[in-house]
């Protein structure tokens, strides 16, 4: 009997000692997916299917967290990054999101990619009160804190980019005739809407808007049509492969409009070079991120750091693709949020911190572009700058702009 009693007192004493000796422990707060040693982060990416090119982003993020872990983790906690494939199919996204939340019990879902998939899980994530943080899409519906306080975007949204181009066109070519090539999905239509809204009363400047499908072999027919209709401004809202086809075809048939290519396809390495650098001369676009193939950033500290990271943690990764820079930047942003959350790793605090970014500097974003967010501002990056291709690299011009979409 006595022995049992001693044991109990000893245990109580030990427990008391533990409480006393580390008072900070008392302030630690965790939700599922976080502990003293670990933070579980979920992710959904199309590693297969028609959008599998984006899978590179997931791989880069994975590599970045390896780096973070190798350097001691986030506030001493190792990151466990669980990334699933949804093949760009919404039902699969739902399944994978539920697996992450209910089976793997992650703290948050990060950078789930694509508008359809994110739309499919938005209600679920908000119902479960699990952060759907920094989604990988520029659709405007993911920055709506009133209805969806657990969902937040990251990159500048497509509509504001469209507005920036509209502003430029109204300013420089007020009498132009605009032809648009767009991918027939939310992404293409968002850009188109931004352009139209930006043109406002002068939306009639758009004389032709032609869609294409991801399954189409080429967009040659559309380019031929746009030229024949007499467009002298070409707004190219296509993903890399089709954007490159359009650039090449336009040059081939001797069509030389003011050619604006959307930011999604602004990579020198994976779009302009395949399309032909000569043919790409004079292209306009906007950007917020540094282009790894642009010699301008050869000695840039941020890009050097990125290159070192790629060499060490993702040597197989494609350094000419903008996706690897993007993945690096967005992963850095998340790490910033989690560091800021400190020891209170609850889902609520994560969202609170994500909505509390003040001039955060991510070193691979263009100079002057910072992350900013607030309780009513769920678009962390809203600034972009226009640039023109000179045959070897992009040249920034004009001020850092924002699309100021009314949200």
């Amino acid at each position, binding site marked *: 009997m006595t022995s049992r009693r001693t044991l109990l007192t000893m245990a109580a004493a030990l427990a008391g000692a533990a409480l006393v000796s580390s008072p900070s422990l008392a302030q630690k707060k965790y939700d599922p997916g976080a502990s003293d040693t670990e933070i579980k982060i979920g992710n959904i990416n199309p*590693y297969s299917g028609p959008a599998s090119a984006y899978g590179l982003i997931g791989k880069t993020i994975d590599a970045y967290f390896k780096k973070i872990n190798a350097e001691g983790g986030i506030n001493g906690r190792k990151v466990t990054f669980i990334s699933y*494939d949804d093949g*760009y199919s*919404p039902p699969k996204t739902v399944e994978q999101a*539920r*697996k992450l*939340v209910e089976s793997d019990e992650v703290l948050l879902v990060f950078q789930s990619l694509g508008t359809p998939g994110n*739309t*499919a899980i938005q209600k679920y994530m908000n119902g479960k009160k699990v952060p759907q943080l920094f989604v990988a899409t520029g659709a405007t519906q993911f920055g709506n804190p009133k209805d969806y306080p657990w969902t937040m975007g990251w990159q500048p949204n497509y509509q504001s980019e469209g507005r920036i181009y509209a502003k430029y066109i109204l300013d420089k070519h007020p009498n132009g005739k605009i032809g648009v090539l767009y991918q027939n999905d939310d992404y293409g239509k968002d850009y188109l809407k931004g352009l139209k809204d930006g043109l406002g009363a002068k939306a009639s400047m758009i004389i032709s808007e032609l869609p294409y*499908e991801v399954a189409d072999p080429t967009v040659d027919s559309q380019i031929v049509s746009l030229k024949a209709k007499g467009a002298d401004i070409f707004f190219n809202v296509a993903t890399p492969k089709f954007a490159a086809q359009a650039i090449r075809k336009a040059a081939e048939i001797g069509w030389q409009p003011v050619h604006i290519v959307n930011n999604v396809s602004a990579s020198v390495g994976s779009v302009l070079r395949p399309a032909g650098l000569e043919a790409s001369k004079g292209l306009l676009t906007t950007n917020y991120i540094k282009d790894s193939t642009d010699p301008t950033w050869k000695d840039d500290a941020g890009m050097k750091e990125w290159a070192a990271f790629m060499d060490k943690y993702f040597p197989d990764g494609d350094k000419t693709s903008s996706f690897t820079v993007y993945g690096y930047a967005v992963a850095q942003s998340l790490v910033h949020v989690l560091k800021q959350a400190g020891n209170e790793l609850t889902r609520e605090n994560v969202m609170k911190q994500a909505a509390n970014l003040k001039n955060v500097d991510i070193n691979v974003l263009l100079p002057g572009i910072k992350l900013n967010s607030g309780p009513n501002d769920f678009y962390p990056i809203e600034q972009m700058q226009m640039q023109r291709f000179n045959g070897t690299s992009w040249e920034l011009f004009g001020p850092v702009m924002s699309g100021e979409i009314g949200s």
Partner: protein
Amino acid sequence: MTTREDIADSAVAVPRLGGLTLRTWQRVLTIIVLLIALALPAVLKNFHVFQLTLVMIYAIAILGLNLLTGINGQFSLGHSAFYAIGAYTTAILMDRFGVPYFLTLPVAGIVCLIAGFLFGLPALRLEGLYLALATFALAVATPQLLKLSILEHWTGGVQGIVIIKPDAPFGLPLSQDRWLYYFTLAILIFMFLAAMRLVASRTGRALKAIRDNPLAAKAMGIDTAFYKSMAFGVSALYTGVAGSLGAIVVQFVAPDSFTFFLAVSFLVGLVVGGVGSIPGALIGGLFIMYIPNLAEQVSKGLAWAVYGAILILVIYVMPTGAAGFVRLVTGRLTRLMSSNR
């Protein structure tokens, strides 16, 4: 492209296994599976319940394809289209008109029955590869049609439609997932029983006669045109009901959900489960639900290569699907038993 496997047919003889007839074994097995199905939600997490619900939904869709391919010998690479029609019917009715979810099921079924019948009419003139191409085209065209801007008011265009998950009725103490599981299970049992009825009926015999020998069937006075179109219709009805359930469970429809890949998955499920076998559809559903996940666990980068390898392995081991395999094994066993006696 006809295949002549038929579990319902092969069970006519009364071979015995361990003193019981195969029929009895089948019954016992069915009851065990049913009991397990009823008990599972109590021990599983919501997420797994959700996955199993999807398995049942896929099984219903595969059963629909089976009625067309296995029983009637027609071929379709386009059943994702009917799945989509069912899903969209439900989504539009729920979202735009506030119709309760359970009422949308029969509507989706009827809409698909009509759509399938109408598609079956021209398809009558096409056989084998041509039918394959026509249905292939249907599958490829479906997402584009759903995106069509003139339909956007109804379909929500590329954004799709988000719908609200129903709660359990009568204040039953069940989570939404568990309730939908039982709801789907009930529909599944109903649909499976109806399919068995159909296969055993006059209509079923006519369909099989057309599959096995269209000329003779015609000579016997079977209206082959009507029956073939009807087979398309009924098949579409099943797949449409599955689509409708899928929309409710996933809470979302969008053009990207119904690509050609879905039609291929159904086909894989059909063949893996066993062409012509009604219970095989469940095996098919399990396969297309879990094997891709398994492949992803084996290797992330090469998940689909692993999946392909598994598929080839399955076909090598069971060239006529799980149902054919089971038939083979039970056949061997009964022969072994009887020769021992």
